[in-house]
């Protein structure tokens, strides 16, 4: 996905004189440093976002990029004030996701990034599940003037799906609905298959804005208003939007994601962490079995 991001930005920066890139060392050598619209500020993430806000105020379309915790968590107030409060747009692109490389420890994990963006109005959030989804999402973001967060991951599905606002129904069933976000799709499908669950599976590579109408329609086409959402970041991040979408009908919701209750201090691999958070096929299968039984 990172390669697709770099390739797309480098293609578009030659075509569109509005596009600028701001980095804080990470990935900076991927972009043409001789271009005056490519600005590497050094290891200064707050200034990275502040400079992006200034560039946007001057009429440019900044792409801001770093590892997720350094792009979102460290300069969170700059995102809130230097971008949002100034009512300007930018395209934020992260790598690292929740725990793409947990050998680096907690400092390089960012399961709360989407939840943080959820505290701010007006952000579109893309969580592509395949490299081929990255390019069209980015191309559209670069054309627009809005505030966009693109969350890239080393984990990807085997197949890309058409992108755009709204959830894509990949399977129809009667027992309930499972919403799989980005790279969670393949394992959700395997879990559903392993349990022979008669459920509708929705796929989302764009999770904000939240497709409330799409979810409501899918739920109404089933016999049970039971919704399971599987997100590759903090569990329950989309719970409030599901509740809002289904507020007029009695429903059950099961939120699965990176667990909140304790900080996991183990290193290991992403697969180890998936298992610890029940985000592997075994854990998801168990959740599907218990939630949709009866």
């Amino acid at each position: 996905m990172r390669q697709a991001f770099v390739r797309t930005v480098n293609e578009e920066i030659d075509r569109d004189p509005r596009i600028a890139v701001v980095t804080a060392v990470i990935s900076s050598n991927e972009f043409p440093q001789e271009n005056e619209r490519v600005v590497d500020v050094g290891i200064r993430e707050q200034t990275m976002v502040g400079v992006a806000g200034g560039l946007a105020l001057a009429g440019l379309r900044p792409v801001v990029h770093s590892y997720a915790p350094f792009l979102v968590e460290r300069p969170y107030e700059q995102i809130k004030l230097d971008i949002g409060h100034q009512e300007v747009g930018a395209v934020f692109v992260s790598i690292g996701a929740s725990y793409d490389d947990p050998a680096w420890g907690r400092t390089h994990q960012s399961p709360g990034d989407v939840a943080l963006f959820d505290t701010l109005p007006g952000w579109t959030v893309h969580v592509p599940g395949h490299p081929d989804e990255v390019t069209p999402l980015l191309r559209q973001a670069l054309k627009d003037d809005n505030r966009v967060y693109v969350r890239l991951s080393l984990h990807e599905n085997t197949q890309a799906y058409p992108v755009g606002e709204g959830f894509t129904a990949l399977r129809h069933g009667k027992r309930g609905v499972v919403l799989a976000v980005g790279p969670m799709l393949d394992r959700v499908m395997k879990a559903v298959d392993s349990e022979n669950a008669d459920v509708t599976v929705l796929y989302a590579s764009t999770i904000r804005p939240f497709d409330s109408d799409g979810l409501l329609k899918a739920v109404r086409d089933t016999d049970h208003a039971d919704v399971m959402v599987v997100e590759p970041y903090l569990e329950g991040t989309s719970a409030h939007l599901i509740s809002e979408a289904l507020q007029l009908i009695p429903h059950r919701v099961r939120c699965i994601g990176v667990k909140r209750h304790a900080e996991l201090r183990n290193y290991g691999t992403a697969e180890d962490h998936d298992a610890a958070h029940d985000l592997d096929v075994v854990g998801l299968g168990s959740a599907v079995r218990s939630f949709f039984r009866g």
Partner: protein
Amino acid sequence: MTGDEKHEWAAASTIDVLWVLYDKVLNVTPATADDPDRDRFLLSKGHGPMAYYAVLAEKGFIDESTLDGWTTWDSPLGQHPDRMLVKGVEISSGSLGHGLPIAVGTAIGQRVGKSRGRTFVLVGDGELDEGSNHEAIAVAARLNVANLTAIVIDNQSAMYGWPGGIARRFAVEGWQTAEVDGRDHEAVFAALTAPHDRPYAVVAKIEKSY
């Protein structure tokens, strides 16, 4: 009067520099407030914007009658300025340490856009405690953002002061610097219009008060 002596002093500290800027230095008027070639003034030290509003009113950016209702529900004028509510306000500010990094970005943006405009940003000496300023001071020099002028209002409110003086903090990073009596309009004008081929910091010294 607001009953907020600390922020009233913040306004009193900036009034002379703001007046010289808008009266004699900045190439911007209400008619050119959206012109890409305008000079941009960023009030980073958004606290105590009464002086800012007064100058904007005198220069026609806002109606003078608006001043009376400030901070009320329907007023566009708050204790911290909002660029979406007040014509001519370049950034919404109030949280310290944001204006200088943004100013580096606007100045680079002006340079990229071949604009004749310059960027001026006003910060306080206390505000310089915020680490984000020091990130921006270094970056502006490394990228030689020569169309950027930072004005530091030094009313000696930094908790621990700046050994060697504020100007030195900028100079060691490669900025051109000047120190001036912040109450002396002619001296402030001369400093703000001095030629510079590097980012430029003008430290305007103000008497210590509150």
